């Protein structure tokens, strides 16, 4: 298959970037999107060009390292990560725009690589959970209803790739943050710190410069893990209740 690629090239974060047109010829239809980029990069290296920098790790759709926006859609068309996208999904001769995630809080490092450490700092702001040390406790010691476990797992499925923030026209990270708050806050292990966690993570999210949710729900539509936007509603509620509790405790 042949493709007309428009790849975002940017030598480093501070320099101005632009699109490079690459004629990708004889790409096997069974190649994944990243394998297609590998082939393109090999040819660039052979001809003495600087290959395209892009993030990748497991290439199994579970690590969340991919950060490509393909034809305007973070992680590419269809559910799943960019590494799980295969070239047979495109038509022969298609023009494909490849851009980095565009979020103010994710500065471009080089080409298609962005710095997503803002997410790590939001996670750190959530703090630890209280857990006893020593031997692992019996598996059935803490009963949790199946429905709660399943719901917490829906949120815990988040791989932290950042596609939600990249898809949001407001550059909001609320699906990511609400998934983290949701999955810990739903389980008994994370309940004791729930109020502190939601206040800490929301404050950090704001400080990192992420935008505000205005319910476009593009985030949930591109999320490779299928985290539902209902978690944002839960976060809105949890944050308000935690703030009220904090205000009451401050006056007491």
């Amino acid at each position, binding site marked *: 298959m042949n493709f007309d690629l428009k790849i975002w090239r940017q030598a480093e974060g501070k320099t101005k970037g632009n699109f490079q047109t690459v004629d990708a010829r004889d790409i096997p239809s069974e190649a994944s999107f990243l394998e297609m980029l590998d082939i393109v990069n090999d040819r660039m290296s052979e001809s003495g060009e600087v290959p395209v920098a892009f993030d990748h790790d497991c290439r199994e759709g579970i690590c969340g390292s991919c950060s490509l926006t393909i034809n305007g859609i973070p992680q590419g068309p269809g559910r799943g990560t960019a590494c799980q996208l295969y070239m047979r999904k495109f038509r022969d001769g298609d023009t494909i725009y490849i*851009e980095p995630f*565009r979020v103010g809080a994710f500065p471009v490092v080089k080409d298609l690589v962005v710095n997503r450490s803002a997410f790590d700092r939001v996670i750190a702001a959530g703090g630890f959970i209280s857990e006893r040390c020593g031997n692992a406790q019996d598996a059935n010691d803490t009963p949790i209803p199946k429905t709660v476990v399943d719901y917490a797992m829906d949120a815990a499925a988040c791989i932290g790739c950042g596609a939600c923030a990249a898809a*949001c*026209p407001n550059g909001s990270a609320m699906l990511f943050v609400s998934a983290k708050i949701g999955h810990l806050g739903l389980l008994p292990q994370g309940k004791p710190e729930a109020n502190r966690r939601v206040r800490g993570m929301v404050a950090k999210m704001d400080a990192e410069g992420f935008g505000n949710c205005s319910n476009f729900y593009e985030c949930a539509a591109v999320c490779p893990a299928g985290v539902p936007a*209902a978690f944002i509603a839960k976060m809105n509620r949890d944050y308000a209740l935690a703030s009220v509790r904090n205000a009451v405790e*401050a006056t007491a």
Partner: protein
Amino acid sequence: MSVVSVSKGPRQPNPLLAFLVSSIGKKWIVGISGGLLIFFVLAHLAGNLTIYIGPFGEGINAYAQALHANPVLLWIARGGLLLVFAVHIGTTMSLIIANRRARPQRYAVKARVQSTLAVRTMALSGLVVLSFLIFHVLQFAGGLSPHADLYDLQGRHDVAAMIILSFHNPLVSGFYLVSLVLLGMHLSHGISSVFQTFGLSGRKSFGLIKQGGLLLAWALIIGFASIPVASVTGFLKILPADRRVAPELSASSQL
């Protein structure tokens, strides 16, 4: 005797202030003010529909008279409404500015996966509705309408005739209907968004609330739009001029 000083640690910000300036706090402010405005729209529609009472829309004349019976309460309500509008628009603007900053560079290819036209045009539909509201208030409440000095058989201000005659002007009814469509779009996203912001939509009720908001918004718009349609088609009739009381006479009889 030694004094032990205990460090209090870094000063904690005021919890209420911290909430109000946070991203989610601002969403709550927009949600609360938007929710109040939805109630206002509901009450306004209920008032408007009284025009269908009586052969010449006397229902709305009585309603208007009752509304103006206590000027103090009326002005308190108007002031409160203005404040709610100001808070809704002001907070939204601060959110929009923050959102622009959070996404400094746009994509070369604009793609949307699922967002509707309504959500992508919230600011635009809101601003058009606002410009309509200014015109609307000046026209009907401000008495700028050329039909504002008519009185009915009971000597009440003939609000029904003012509305029906105004809608006979195609520019007035056209602007009204266009603004209603934009208000419908604004509400079709706004009503379900209020539930989302207050955390009242769960994973099961999410779709139901979205569809319910859409349905309620357009039901409201059909209610409002029925009045210009009924005026233009002649379903709503005005009191014939030969049975009308002279304005000077009715004004003095009111005293």
